[in-house]
């Protein structure tokens, strides 16, 4: 746009509507070009593969024949598949609920203490979120080790155990969820803390004067004020938890038997490790409905925010 000179515009009076107009048009062209890398990246490496997965899911194992919904039919007959569906839902819902509760509670505690000490506590509480999950899960794996479990060592002093942390289906599910909560709760904590800080102090004072007990203050003041952020964070986390891979992969690799397989890990086992790409695609595609529902909810909020942009 820099090269349009004033004299030219005056000189070509008959050619009015050119300069600035073209400028504006060129502006949107430049804008489009500036966004092009982003569009290409998303188009080629996100949207295309996402659609390609649907196509792959309809091929036979050696990918030489189109079988329509045959793979899905096959999958529906497998017990393991239904186990995975159940486990993924159990895992995601339980973990998110507890993450949300713990995050909320901890955020409150941090909010309650004098603000000059808050930074320090917040810093310590966020550490699980900062460590790459594959690394921290290794620490858990070692804490849960059947022969050397440091937890069992402590429990043994109280005459409990040894607990087969990763050995029995129920315990293994518990362990996987626990690690997920451990890693994810700080995120909720930090989000809620930010939201808590935006609740005006006067509201609590007013509520206190109205005679509200602490739980009433939380119920009538805090929760309504934070409703949006709670919903968004929970949906967000639901997606991430539902699609979890690293924690399960490192901690139990889906075991014992298939008691902790999720869509992601099972899809990996089938698609990459067993070389059955179409069946693996089928499995991971089952995440789409829940993603879509969560995304629709988030979208509602986003469009609200988008209009401000």
């Amino acid at each position, binding site marked *: 746009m820099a090269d349009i000179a004033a004299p030219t515009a005056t000189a070509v009076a008959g050619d009015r509507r050119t300069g600035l107009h073209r400028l504006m048009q060129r502006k949107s062209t430049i804008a489009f070009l500036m966004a092009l890398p982003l569009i290409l990246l998303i188009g080629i490496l996100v949207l295309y593969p996402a659609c390609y997965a649907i196509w792959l899911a309809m091929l036979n*194992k050696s990918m030489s024949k189109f079988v329509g919904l045959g793979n899905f039919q*096959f999958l529906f007959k*497998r*017990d393991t598949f239904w186990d995975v569906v159940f486990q993924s839902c159990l895992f995601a819902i339980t973990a998110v609920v507890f993450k949300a509760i713990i995050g909320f509670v901890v955020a409150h505690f941090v909010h309650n203490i004098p603000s000059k000490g808050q930074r320090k506590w917040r810093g310590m509480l966020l550490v699980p979120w900062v460590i790459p999950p594959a690394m921290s899960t290794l620490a858990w794996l070692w804490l849960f080790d059947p022969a050397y479990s440091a937890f069992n060592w402590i429990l043994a002093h109280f005459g409990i155990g040894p607990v087969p*942390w*990763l050995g*029995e*289906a129920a315990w293994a599910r518990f362990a996987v969820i626990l690690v997920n909560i451990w890693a994810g709760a700080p995120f909720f904590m930090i989000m809620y803390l930010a939201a808590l800080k935006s609740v005006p102090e006067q509201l609590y004072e007013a509520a206190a004067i109205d005679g509200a007990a602490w739980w009433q203050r939380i119920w009538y003041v805090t929760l309504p004020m934070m409703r949006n952020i709670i919903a968004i964070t929970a949906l967000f986390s639901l997606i991430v938890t539902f699609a979890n891979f690293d924690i399960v992969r490192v901690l139990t690799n889906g075991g*014992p038997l298939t008691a902790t397989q999720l869509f992601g890990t099972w899809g990996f086992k089938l698609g990459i*490790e067993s070389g059955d790409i179409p069946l693996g695609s089928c499995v991971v595609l089952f995440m789409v409905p829940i993603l879509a529902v969560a995304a629709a909810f988030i979208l509602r909020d986003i469009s609200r925010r988008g209009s401000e942009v």
Partner: protein
Amino acid sequence: MGFKKVSRRGFVGGTAALSSVMVAAPFVRGAHAAGKLSIGFWDHWVPGANKATQKLVQEWGEKEKVEVQIDYITSQGNKLLLTAAAEAQAKSGHDIMTLNTWLPARYADQLTPVNDIMEPLIKQNGKVNGTVEYLGNIGGKWLAVPATSGTQMKGPCSRLDYMKQYAGLDMREIYPAGAPPKADNWNLDTFLKAAEACHKGGHPFGIGLGTTSDNVDAIGTFFHAFGAELVNAKGDIVVKNDAVRQVLDYYKKLMHYLPDDVAAWDDASNNKFLVSGQGALILNPPSAWAVAKRDAPKVAEQCWTHPFPAGPKGRFGPFLPFFWGVWNFGKNQSAAKSLLTHLSQRSSAEQMVEASGGYDLPSFANFMDFKVWAEAEPPKGTLFSYPDPYHTQTLSIAAAPAPHKIAEQIYNQGTMTQMAVRYFKGEPMEKTLDWASNELEGFMRN
């Protein structure tokens, strides 16, 4: 082409003059002059064992003026499997690739047949066992050379003290070092009783029931001992038979005496169980003992490795062969074959066995008498019976003799351990069998 030369050289190689012949071998400076060779070896679990292969390859490379590059690839987390898969799909990668167990069959179409070196090698080094034949020789074609490094037997490794104290069994007497075994009573019933006794004594047997190879190999042997097949050699699902029911019943009893969390064990769990001093017996090659020797010498002093108990259908030994294969898209196949011949010589095999502390097991019949096994200590003779020098067992692999593609999946998915766990958890026998046949049908998918 290089082919003929190699086979000619192979014949000559039957003699002790082999190494000098190799120096003179013209092929390397021929078509593939200034050759380069890349090798994907299995990353050995025994500390220091990689050094032997490295040294052998270097020796060869210097003699042949071939630039060699070695990658050590662990089998943990299916890394070896994935690497092979990636290379097969990419049609590029290492010239020589370590292919464990089922992979020669899986990549039959991408491997160069090696009959030209295998036949002379067998003549020279003695026969190979049936499991190696089953896995490596398909339709008369040798797809890969059995590798010494990595090949292993997962027989019992017992604690002498616990077995004696709780079960009243002196394993050193049953399998004496340097003498034929007196193992007539070492059968599955004895085994079960011993398991019960040791469990009562607070030091149970550590037999994993996860889906990794140690666990599958172990249960596969029990299946063989009962003559239980899930899929027969023709590929029919025969899961609903009495032998299977028997072995499941046996396992159910056995599992009562195993630790609670065996269903989640991986290949390392049994080792840790032994090394930490908790277990009275595990089914594992001597790596656990080797680690104990380093980290827990008092435990190592009580370890004794020996063959499997006999079952109704005989005495089977869980044998897990590794192979070295040559990709048919490889750029330097003749050099690869030359190196494989070199690695299959007696002295090479002995070096590998030695470096691995006796862990590695050559597949050729004439190689079972290396000194390492007789001399390993403490305690003296602990590994004497590891290679089964008196050939008392039939070496077997889980899921054999099913067609390879199906067997591989039974093996990789741990179908047998899953069945055992399901039945143990209280699922009715027929339901477990239904589940298994449903799974097996899934494996027929193509």
